[in-house]
């Protein structure tokens, strides 16, 4: 090993004290302002995340933190919960070789085929009548969006994530951007995250293994009853502040977040790219709790693995009207509440992982009616839109480099926005059934880079609603008949 590297990595070299002073001053200030003086006294510590920039920093293989990347295992979860620190003396950036650059790129060139039935067409191409009904099919080579991750420790117990993310046409937004202050009062039970981030979901949609248009999302994380003006999606990143805590091994975890009621929007709007309608001025709350335990196996064997179960609740509100000027919307007002509650699990039986999730959603009746501000009379038959359902996902790990995937999803509308007896619409309007299968093979899994080959098939059935994947013409041909949408997908997922 060259002496140069040793010097760079050695906090005892003389340059350290200068850096120490600079970092200490800057972060003492921030810490004092944002948390309190106690956090500052906790300054020199560390945390980690399972991205190649972290793998490189610590010399760990991807599989140390991921069951199969990007899904985290418990080691990765603890690293993340500790604010991207291993909690040893190598966490602080002063330990890094100065040429270390904490950036990861991820993009997936692919071939895919999307086909959706019951779509509206022009009966003769070009005539503009929109009266035809048929199957819309597209196939070809494609790109995914791109993630440009950066993340790391700024100081012991202060870390950040910055994720500018683009769609395949390179329209960028800030998918995640937050700073974390960890182990306040030297306690793992008190950590604060500030910015835009994924909700503390036991089953993460941001770190899951499916990529295809239909399979690459959890339907229930984006579902709303047909006609509802609620734009909330449990899987979407939100913006606000989160207080979270965990036991030393993260078997017990909790979080409480306070978020703007604007679906993670920025610039006082409800979107991360220009053009979203204005946000309101209220806040939502998300609560999450989970507990893991070890399942012992039969006597003489090594046990089944870690079992985690948890529950969550999101209580939010959305505007039913806007303050305007010359008709232009300014600020959302007349808010009405909604909530999502549910439970989830991450269960293992040796190499088999099972992830069930159940969710119940309930919106105020006004959120089911477009253009009816809170306080005015509801139309006949208006009722609280509700739905319930979830999914069961299974992974089988042949080894850390090969995993087979399957998922079944079902969502039923409990109550339509307008009672079927008044509207005449079927009570099952909006229901979704979906199945997805996949296989991921990681031929390259080093600390410096990862490549995964991903093959998937996903099939979704919806009634009266476009599939969440957005495939199709955008309009349903026959609103009472089912829409079937299929994805076949082969991609090469790479992460550097």
């Amino acid at each position: 090993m060259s002496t140069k590297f040793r010097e760079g990595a050695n906090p005892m070299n003389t340059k350290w004290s200068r850096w120490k002073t600079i970092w200490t001053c800057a972060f003492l200030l921030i810490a004092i302002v944002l948390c309190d003086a106690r956090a500052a006294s906790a300054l020199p510590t560390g945390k980690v995340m399972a991205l190649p920039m972290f793998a490189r920093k610590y010399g760990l293989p991807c599989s140390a933190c991921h069951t199969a990347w990007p899904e985290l295992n418990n080691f990765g979860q603890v690293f993340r919960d500790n604010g991207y620190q291993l909690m040893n003396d190598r966490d602080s950036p002063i330990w890094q070789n100065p040429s270390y650059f904490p950036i990861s790129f991820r993009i997936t060139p692919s071939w895919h085929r999307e086909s959706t039935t019951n779509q509206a067409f022009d009966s003769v191409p070009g005539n503009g009548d929109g009266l035809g009904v048929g199957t819309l099919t597209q196939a070809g080579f494609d790109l995914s969006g791109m993630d440009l991750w950066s993340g790391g420790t700024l100081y012991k117990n202060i870390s950040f994530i910055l994720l500018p993310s683009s769609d395949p046409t390179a329209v960028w937004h800030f998918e995640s951007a937050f700073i974390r202050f960890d182990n306040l009062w030297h306690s793992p039970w008190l950590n604060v995250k500030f910015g835009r981030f994924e909700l503390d979901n036991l089953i993460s949609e941001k770190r899951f293994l499916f990529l295809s248009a239909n399979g690459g999302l959890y339907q229930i994380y984006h579902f709303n009853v047909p006609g509802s003006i609620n734009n909330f999606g449990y899987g979407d990143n939100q913006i606000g502040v989160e207080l979270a805590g965990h036991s030393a091994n993260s078997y017990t975890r909790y979080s409480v977040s306070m978020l703007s009621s604007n679906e993670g929007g920025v610039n006082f709007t409800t979107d991360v790219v220009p053009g979203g309608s204005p946000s309101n001025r209220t806040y939502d709350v998300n609560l999450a709790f989970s507990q893991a335990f070890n399942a012992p196996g039969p006597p003489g064997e090594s046990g089944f693995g870690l079992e985690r179960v948890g529950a969550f609740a999101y209580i939010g509100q959305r505007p039913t009207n806007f303050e305007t000027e010359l008709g232009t919307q300014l600020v959302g007002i007349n808010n009405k509440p909604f909530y999502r509650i549910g439970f989830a699990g991450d269960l293992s039986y040796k190499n088999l992982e099972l992830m069930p999730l159940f969710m119940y959603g309930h919106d105020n009746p006004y959120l089911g009616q477009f253009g009816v501000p809170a306080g005015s009379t509801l139309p006949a038959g208006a009722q609280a839109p509700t739905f319930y359902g979830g999914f069961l996902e299974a992974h089988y790990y042949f080894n850390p480099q090969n995993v087979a995937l399957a998922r079944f999803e079902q969502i039923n509308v409990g109550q339509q926005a307008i009672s079927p007896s008044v509207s005449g619409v079927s009570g099952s309007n909006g229901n979704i059934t979906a199945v997805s299968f996949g296989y991921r093979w990681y031929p390259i899994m080093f600390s410096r880079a990862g490549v995964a080959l991903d093959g998937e098939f996903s099939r979704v059935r919806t009634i009266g609603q476009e599939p969440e994947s957005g495939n199709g013409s955008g309009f349903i041909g026959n609103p009472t008949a089912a829409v079937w949408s299929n994805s076949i997908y082969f991609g090469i997922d790479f992460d550097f």
Partner: protein
Amino acid sequence: MTLKKFAVTFALGSIALLTAGARVSTAQSHVNSPDPLLGTPSVATETSQVNGLTGHAEEGKHQYRRFCIGCHGPDGNGQGMNAQWIDPQPRDFTEATFKCRSTPTGTLPTDEDLFNAITRGFVTTNMPSWRPLNPQQRADLVAFIKTWSPRWAKEKPGAVLNIPPETAVTIESILHGRELFQKLECWKCHGPEGHADGPSASTLTDSKGNPIKPFNFSTGERFMCGDSNRDLYRIFMTGLDGSPMPSFADVIQPNDAWDLVHFLRTLQVALPNNQELTLWQSYKAAHGKDLKPIGPDSAGGAQ
């Protein structure tokens, strides 16, 4: 396309993917092959016993591949693909020489020692704490680590060091510990104030010939081999095999060892809630001038 065609395309595609996969993986270096640990010695029978758990090497092998191979290597010799970037170097398990032991220098550690080392990690190095793995997984890893050296088949772990109950923290105890620190020449490596800057510090190498630094008491809150007073006692009474840090079991009496523990704590100026340090500072404020400085100058005086 009909659904039937879909299904056929998908099936053919998957087969193509899998065949391609199988071919590429046979071409990979053995770290990335489906079973990079094929070459390991017979592991099936090795077990470990930790806190009532039985660890199985065969299970540990899977964990090792997932978590440890990047540093400790497919051959267990510490030459994983990341080893070249890591200082100090990952442990070479084929030598069966371990730092954190409750057993005398030169002997094998107990299963529990290895389990504790894996759980705790080595705080000043790249070796992470594996506490997030469940106890069974860690016990399995201990069993697997023991398959790398034939010593485990031939020898038994040494007798566990008996640690008497801790004596009271008094000024006399600290002062006596300070004398030992001077007399046993801890300062030659660790420095008079524990700053890792003793006269020998810059010349030290480990058993593999790599330069190594003594522990710096003034910045370190935790030791590699634990953080309690009992851990500290054990560290210098058994030594860190493979490093220049010797065992002092032959030269320090059991109760004197507690005095040394109490003095070493006063060197840890960065450690919060340090009762030994508080006591020592108030003593020094009153009697500091009478204390002979530690180091070569006072070597005679401390005899």
